[in-house]
């Protein structure tokens, strides 16, 4: 398979159309399995009781918020370097989903913080840098929406994406660099996770579900963006002809 072949919008469009149902189905199945583990298999936590179950949403959403931003910055860099049309489309298609996951991470964090810390919000390093991430997503979308010329809009947004990516390691390491309220990570690559295995599995399955969801949604959005941008081309005209 030639990857460059699919870098052209006219070949990517039908490919994405074929992939979307698979990612959507996987997202549904994984979400069902993840929720089942979250509520019916994972035991009550000995310190936090049932309140800890927020972890099954909070941690995957927070992972996604950072990861989607990095992927978005990656496509922005490719787009700026090689001026490939599809890269900018992908970067743009990911932003709303990333913003959604960031909002969910902040919201569930507040709903977890209130019963456990006694506060909906504190200006802790982790919370503050995650809030900045949310503003970055919203800022990129607002900037792109404010510029009419699509090429200039793409480039301006991509530049802001690249500048903002510095915030992602700050979020990740904030719990180590500043000793504030938010706890350190329970899962990382260098040591055994400090939580029960079944809880870890629930979290990982929910994270995988979030991945599949994000891919499906970004592909749907990318397809709409491609149609808009390629409307003058023969293949989009032929598609319209076939649809009507």
């Amino acid at each position, binding site marked *: 398979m030639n990857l460059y072949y699919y870098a052209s919008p006219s070949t990517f469009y039908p490919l994405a159309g074929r992939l979307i149902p698979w990612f959507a189905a996987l997202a549904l199945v994984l979400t069902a399995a993840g929720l089942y583990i979250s*509520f019916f298999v994972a035991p009550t936590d000995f310190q936090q009781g049932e309140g800890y179950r927020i972890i099954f949403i909070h941690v995957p*959403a927070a992972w996604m918020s950072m990861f989607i931003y990095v992927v978005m910055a990656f496509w922005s860099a490719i787009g700026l370097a090689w001026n490939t049309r599809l890269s900018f489309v992908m970067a743009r298609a990911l932003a709303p989903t990333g913003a959604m996951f960031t909002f*969910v991470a902040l919201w*569930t964090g507040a709903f977890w913080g209130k019963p456990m810390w006694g506060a909906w919000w504190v200006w802790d390093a982790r919370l503050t840098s995650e809030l900045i991430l949310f503003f970055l997503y919203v800022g990129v979308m607002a900037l792109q929406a404010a510029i009419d010329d699509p090429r200039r809009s793409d480039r301006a947004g991509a530049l802001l994406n690249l500048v903002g990516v510095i915030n992602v390691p700050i979020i990740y390491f904030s719990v180590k660099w500043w000793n504030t309220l938010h706890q350190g990570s329970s899962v990382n690559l260098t040591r055994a996770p400090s939580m029960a295995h079944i809880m870890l599995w629930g979290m990982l399955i929910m994270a995988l579900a979030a991945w599949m969801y994000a891919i499906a949604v970004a592909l749907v959005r990318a397809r709409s963006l491609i149609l808009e941008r390629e409307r003058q081309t023969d293949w989009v005209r032929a598609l319209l002809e076939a649809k009507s």
Partner: protein
Amino acid sequence: MNWESWEAFWAMGGYGLYVWGSFGMTLLCVVGELWLLRRHRLQTWQRLKRLKSWDSQ
């Protein structure tokens, strides 16, 4: 099985507001995004069809 009854399930050991507030808002966000996505897609098709009908006039 963790729960003795549905009441116990919804109560979440006293953390009902926080657990369901989190899961509920997440559901709302996902449904909202899917709705916006569908609207975006339909609007794009309609716009393209309108442009095409002007072309052929």
